[in-house]
């Protein structure tokens, strides 16, 4: 990179704390992608040797309710303040929310406090009256994908696999999709800003893959809260996903990488819905395009068991991708849970092909 480019690119960087994180889990990720958060904690602790607290007293940030207009902003600020007070209890200053919407909510709350100090005082009063607690504003708020991005080179040294087709030697072609609440609310809180989000693209390129630049790359996945939560509006939600898949289809992506719970969920599950509604899938084999979280991808390349990462609970099955990378897996273990018990096989979709008999 030449000097001028470096100079301008610096404006698109953000500060990401080095160590000592307070982890705030997502409300929905543990049910939709149950291995992702565990994989992130394992990567940080075991691979990178960082300190990260996974607090049992934590709770929602209200993000879903807030963006659905059923929770007031005053309430959201107070609940976020309680989470910050839990972080202060653990004598930590670096806040790491697992969910992109939580990340957006926390940055919005802190930005509000910075611009309107009277709101901060009001929130302190509300929290004191409701819980008797005090809190400090985090010195650093980073999304987990920021941290994986920051340490992508260190992780590469430990990886057993690369994003390369092990039969042809060609880089895998990857669609990256960053959640809207990551960089489109406050662009200076995103690596690459809103214009050039680099957080996932940086991982893909570092780990050997090729990023696909397709026309609807920056389009919303379709979750959008209001569009999905009311059934009558779901047509708008799925229409957004369809638009993205139609746009990426001709580039023949090997998989989609996301950093937001909603995006992963909807780009994965809507493929099934579109297939059932219109008989259409967006790959050559009728099996859909796998959608992974960045933790699942990092875990896979580090050599973790795909079934421990929870890939079997995705709608679009990932075996084709594992075969391309050359990752070994045991099909017999697919529906055996961590406890060693059989967890059941999902019902087989009518149109979207899967490689199990449900």
């Amino acid at each position, binding site marked *: 990179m030449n000097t001028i480019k470096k100079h301008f690119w610096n404006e698109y960087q953000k500060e990401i704390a080095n160590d000592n994180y307070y982890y705030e889990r997502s409300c929905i990720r543990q049910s939709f992608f149950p291995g992702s958060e565990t994989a992130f904690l394992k990567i940080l602790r075991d691979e990178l040797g960082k300190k990260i607290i996974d607090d049992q007293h934590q709770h929602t940030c209200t993000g879903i309710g807030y963006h659905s207009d059923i929770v007031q902003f005053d309430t959201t600020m107070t609940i976020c303040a309680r989470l910050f007070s839990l972080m202060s209890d653990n004598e930590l200053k670096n806040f790491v929310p697992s969910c992109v919407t939580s990340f957006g909510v926390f940055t919005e709350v802190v930005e509000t406090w910075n611009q309107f100090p009277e709101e901060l005082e009001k929130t302190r009063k509300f929290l004191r009256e409701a819980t008797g607690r005090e809190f400090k504003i985090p010195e650093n708020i980073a999304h987990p994908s920021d941290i994986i991005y920051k340490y992508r080179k260190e992780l590469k040294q430990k990886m057993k696999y690369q994003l390369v087709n092990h039969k042809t030697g060609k880089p895998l072609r990857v669609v990256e999709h960053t959640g809207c609440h990551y960089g489109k609310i406050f662009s200076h809180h995103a690596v690459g800003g809103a214009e050039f989000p680099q957080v996932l693209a940086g991982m893909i390129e570092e780990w050997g893959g090729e990023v696909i630049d397709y026309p609807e790359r920056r389009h919303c996945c379709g979750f959008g809260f209001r569009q999905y939560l009311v059934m009558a509006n779901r047509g708008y939600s799925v*229409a957004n996903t369809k638009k993205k898949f139609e746009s990426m289809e001709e580039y023949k992506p090997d998989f989609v990488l996301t950093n937001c719970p909603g995006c992963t969920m909807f780009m994965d599950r809507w493929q099934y819905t579109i297939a059932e509604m219109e008989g259409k899938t967006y790959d050559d084999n009728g099996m859909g395009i796998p959608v992974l979280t960045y933790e699942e991808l990092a875990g896979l390349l580090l050599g973790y068991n795909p079934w421990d990462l929870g890939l079997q609970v995705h709608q679009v099955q990932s075996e084709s991708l594992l075969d391309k990378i050359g990752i070994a897996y045991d099909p017999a273990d697919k529906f055996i849970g961590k406890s060693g018990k059989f967890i059941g096989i999902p019902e087989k979709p009518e149109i979207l092909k899967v490689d199990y008999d449900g």
Partner: protein
Amino acid sequence: MKNWGFKISKPRVLDFDTANLDAYNRLIEKVPSAHRCLMCGACTATCTANLHTTFNFRNCHLMFRRGQFEGLAEELDKCMLCGKCKLVCPRGVNTRAIIYNLRIVLSDLNYKKIEL
């Protein structure tokens, strides 16, 4: 195919690959005041046909300007050409003449043969 209780919404984005934008120029030749329309919707608010049908002049004009003709001829058929919309237009647009000429242009484009 399953019924999910909702359908996939069609995109409302103007597709320049399929939009016929030349037809609007033909309308402007006939009714130059069409240029002055700012889509305020006063015409639709006062429209008698709009009280009893789905007819919406503002929407028809907008769709034609964008080159989107599907279903437009059927909608224009609902107008009685009474001209009340022309009386309330704050920009002096000859709305009645627009509807009359839209029918002719669409008919020429074979969207629907209309008895005039």
